[in-house]
């Protein structure tokens, strides 16, 4: 894998990015160009290869390329290979960016991959991320989106489960305020029997934020013993925020376990009162509740260090503080 690019310590020092701290290998993509390597980015893991370090791709946009930008990243996980990837996207200037990112992920038989996608841009940036995923038999994928900040974020995910006994675990946490817009569109295709999928998308909406969740589960004829679950829960902090949720199940097999559920709610008043009677101030009590709500998604991140880092970013974001990683020298949002 290391042949694909040259680690760029100069950039790393400039960013001082500490996500995800220790065991990561960082690679920068500036305005769609892989730094010290070949564009577009390709990760090709051989059969049985095990990515020892977490690969962190840090995509940055700055004033050197204004307007629209399109780039892609491809990940090929050979048979029984393993790897963890963190993808961060940031904007380093407050221009009107429109970004189209196309991500292709292929998991061969028995491959296991975990992706954490952290989107932390600014209020005028539009980021469209399109994930096309193909999974062979016995493959296992976890993909977690943390949409922390952005004017408009559109995540479109298509998963084709093409081989039996594969497992797909999707998570999403989206946080909006001001007039931010965040949409998640999921198309999950169970083409063959004996696969499992699980989707958990949660949103916390403040101010005039708007979010949409479109989740389609398609169980093809003959895809028996499919287990497909989907949940979308939204917490409205303000009266003006709007969360739309549209689950869609298309099931053409009869021996399956499928469920979906969607809720839009507010903070629980009795819980708040209980916390306040213990001396926890109202604002702090609200934050604790929101963190508890968010944690269910963060829990899907297996790397503890990364999870804690993300948790603190989410907390800062919910506190209305500037969400950047500790020690980071740049303004990520």
């Amino acid at each position: 894998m290391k042949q694909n690019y040259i680690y760029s310590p100069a950039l790393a020092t400039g960013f001082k990015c500490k996500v995800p701290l220790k065991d990561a290998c960082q690679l920068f993509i500036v305005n769609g160009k892989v730094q010290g390597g070949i564009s577009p980015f390709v990760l090709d893991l051989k059969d049985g290869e095990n990515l020892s370090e977490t690969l962190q791709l840090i995509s940055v946009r700055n004033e050197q390329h204004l307007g629209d930008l399109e780039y892609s990243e491809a990940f090929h996980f050979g048979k029984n290979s393993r790897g963890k990837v963190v993808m961060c996207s940031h904007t380093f200037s407050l221009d009107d960016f429109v970004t189209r990112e196309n991500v292709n992920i292929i998991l061969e038989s028995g491959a296991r991959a975990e992706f954490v996608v952290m989107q932390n841009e600014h209020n005028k940036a539009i980021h469209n991320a399109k994930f096309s995923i193909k999974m062979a038999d016995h493959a296992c994928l976890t993909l977690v989106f943390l949409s922390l900040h952005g004017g408009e974020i559109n995540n479109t995910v298509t998963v084709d489960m093409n081989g039996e006994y594969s497992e797909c675990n999707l998570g999403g946490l989206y946080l909006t305020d001001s007039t931010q817009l965040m949409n998640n569109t999921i198309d999950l295709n169970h083409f063959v029997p004996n696969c499992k999928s699980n989707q958990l998308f949660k949103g916390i909406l403040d101010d005039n934020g708007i979010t949409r969740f479109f989740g389609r589960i398609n169980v093809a004829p003959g895809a028996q013993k499919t287990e497909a679950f989907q949940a979308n829960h939204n917490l409205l902090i303000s009266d003006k925020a709007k969360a739309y949720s549209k689950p869609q199940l298309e099931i053409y097999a009869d021996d399956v376990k499928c469920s979906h559920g969607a809720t839009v709610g507010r903070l629980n008043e009795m819980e708040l009162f209980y916390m306040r009677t213990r001396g926890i101030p109202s604002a702090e009590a609200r934050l604790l509740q929101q963190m508890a709500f968010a944690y269910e998604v963060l829990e899907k991140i297996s790397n503890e260090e990364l999870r804690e880092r993300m948790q603190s970013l989410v907390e800062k974001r919910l506190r209305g503080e500037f969400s950047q990683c500790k020690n980071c020298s740049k303004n990520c949002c």
Partner: protein
Amino acid sequence: MLTIKDLHASIGDKEILRGINLSVNEGEVHAIMGPNGSGKSTLSAVLAGRESYTVTSGEVIYEGKNLLELTPEERSWAGIFLGFQYPIEIPGVSNVNFIKAAVNEHRKQKGLPALSAAEFLKLMRERMAYVEMDSSFSSRGVNVGFSGGEKKRNEIFQMAMLEPKLAILDETDSGLDVDALRIVATGVNKMRRPDNATIVITHYQRLLDYIVPDVIHILYKGKIIKTAGKELALEIEKKGYDWLINE
């Protein structure tokens, strides 16, 4: 310490408290008894500052301050503690983080620094022992999946952590088995000091065998209809409330 004068409170347009007068001094234990629905929990919620109840008239003076002007958290900082009849479950917030946030907030209000992890752990262990609570409860969500009795122990544990001046314990004995009742009551007694006070709300004499009250008040339809010494509980145990209501 606490003086309640002609307190009226309602929910919606339903008046629940209809003129309560009560005075509690330092070092005292008051018991409030009364039939179901008479307003005992409402009184405790109003004292703790629950916003869904509207105080329509009357006043509550606590340590020289108008209690009704304070937010629930301010009341907690001022030393008021409510042990809930039905403790609330908070999924996703661990018991330890919850109580740590509460303790450190109290310290902050007193101008004290937050406890170090080790100090906090030591204090927590010590106070969990007051109610013989297992340490495995600390990592679980607040009250989530706790049995009725475990929730009540957790209330008293929280009380032990916060060391209130005035504790209002709403039916802390209900749902406790015989041993747990003794343990919880012993825990409460351990915290008694000449400068704090306790109001226990209960239906049963047996709690009052352990936490011996100075006075017992009978609340009925939002009013205190009788105040007497601890023997009253025994009489109620035998005769019920009818004779008092008819008086």
